[in-house]
């Protein structure tokens, strides 16, 4: 069998918009449009059930990063109180004492609201800087609360994790931007 030449292969759409051929008389599905942010954050929470059984905190807090990325990309998509349910869900899998996620995620939403009111203009670097501060505070406070629960001083093991988290944030925002385009695919017939 000859090796298939490139033009013979079925073309994979490069952009999510190309998945949908017909665009006239179509609108985004309301379920997908409002549900995808919640589902994607919850799936990121389940990253604890990844194939890695870690003996040190190595994975970045993916769920919190996805949550922040949605908040930065679409400021009004997640309601202000979204930290309550999503943080509670993350607490079930993260191993932190229950309530830690609720507190920190709610606080992050309130801080982001203040930041939005103070800084009138947005840019990539500024978003990254704000997210970096929030993620660093999140990691340090999480480790502190975990240390409190284990009656053990704040473990200084989050350094590598913090660096990975800060470096990975732009990638997460790209992934969330892609999801945002999937979210608005015109699937429903009007």
């Amino acid at each position, binding site marked *: 069998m000859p090796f298939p030449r490139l033009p013979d292969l079925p073309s994979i759409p490069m952009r999510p918009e190309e998945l949908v051929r017909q665009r006239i008389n179509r609108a985004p599905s309301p379920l997908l449009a409002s549900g995808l942010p919640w589902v994607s954050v919850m799936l990121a929470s389940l990253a604890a059930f990844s194939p890695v059984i870690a*003996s040190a905190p190595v994975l970045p*807090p993916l769920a919190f990063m996805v949550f922040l990325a949605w908040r930065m990309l679409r400021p009004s998509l997640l309601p*202000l109180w979204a930290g309550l349910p999503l943080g509670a869900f993350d607490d079930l*899998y*993260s191993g932190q004492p*229950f309530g830690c996620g609720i507190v920190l995620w709610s606080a992050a*939403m309130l801080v982001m609201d203040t930041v939005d009111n103070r800084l009138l203009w947005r840019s990539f670097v500024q978003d990254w800087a704000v997210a970096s501060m929030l993620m660093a505070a999140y990691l340090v406070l999480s*480790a502190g609360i975990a240390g409190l*629960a284990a009656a053990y001083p704040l473990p200084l093991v989050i350094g590598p994790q913090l660096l990975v988290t800060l470096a990975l944030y732009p990638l997460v925002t790209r992934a969330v931007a892609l999801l945002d385009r999937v979210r608005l695919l015109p699937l429903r017939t009007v």
Partner: protein
Amino acid sequence: MARSPDRRPGFSRRAQYGIFTGYVIAVAGFLAGVAMLIVSIVNPQAFSSVRGAASEIARPAGEAGAETRAAGQSVISAIGAYFQAGRQNAALTREVAAARANAFTMQALEGENRRLKALLGIVDPAVKPIAAARLIGSTASSARRFAVLSAGAAQGVRPGQPVRSSAGLIGRVIEAGPGTARVLLVTDPENVVPVRRARDGLPAFVEGKSDGRIAIRLLNMGMNPLKRGDVFVTSGSGGLYPPGIPVAVVTEVLHDGGVGHLASDPADADFVVVLPVFQPTAVTALGASQQAAGPAPEASEAGGGN
């Protein structure tokens, strides 16, 4: 890029109330979270049933992940072995020669051990494992070290039971749901395991450092007799862990103890075995006396005390 203007409600009363309610719920959620956090720090088992149910739901995903992990490791190790075949061959030949010599010594020692035990009248209780299961998840982004096991109360797993792999101790069960259980790994700072040096029985205890290594603390103060490469096994004191399970290998000697590597990295363990509590009567007696005596002055470990 300017920020989006959709937070300004204009004159719509409904929109204004909506935003106000959002703030109220967000702040109330924050305060409720603080309350729940305090509850769960004071009583760590408070939300265990909810967590158990959550693990049950995620169990299929975790099991699929555990299988991919095994497959992925074998692929990577196969590729690695291809590159290191020559060096590995030479090293293994040397190792086999050394092991063969050791095996004869071991056989002699085993026979002697049996004779001495018969002389003393010690009967080793036959330890039958409770369940064999996979580790299907872990808290990879938290500073606490928990793993989730794919067996639970339905298989007879109860809180307190030790978990080991073929290479050594993994941890102990702290919460058991119907089909999953939560394991406190040896590397968690809350897990304190009484151990002894395999060579001469030097007593010590190990405590997790949360970064994948464990701290080894000696019971007897004075000159530090630890050397790099010393192997520590469980001693059986406290009645929780059966004696003789490898726990740690010393990699760094400090002035009052040492830092060790795990004998069994949970990431390498394909299947783990849940063992019964070594001496349940001792553990319950210890728990009862601790309850009667009130809380210990510093964080001591139920069943792991020395």
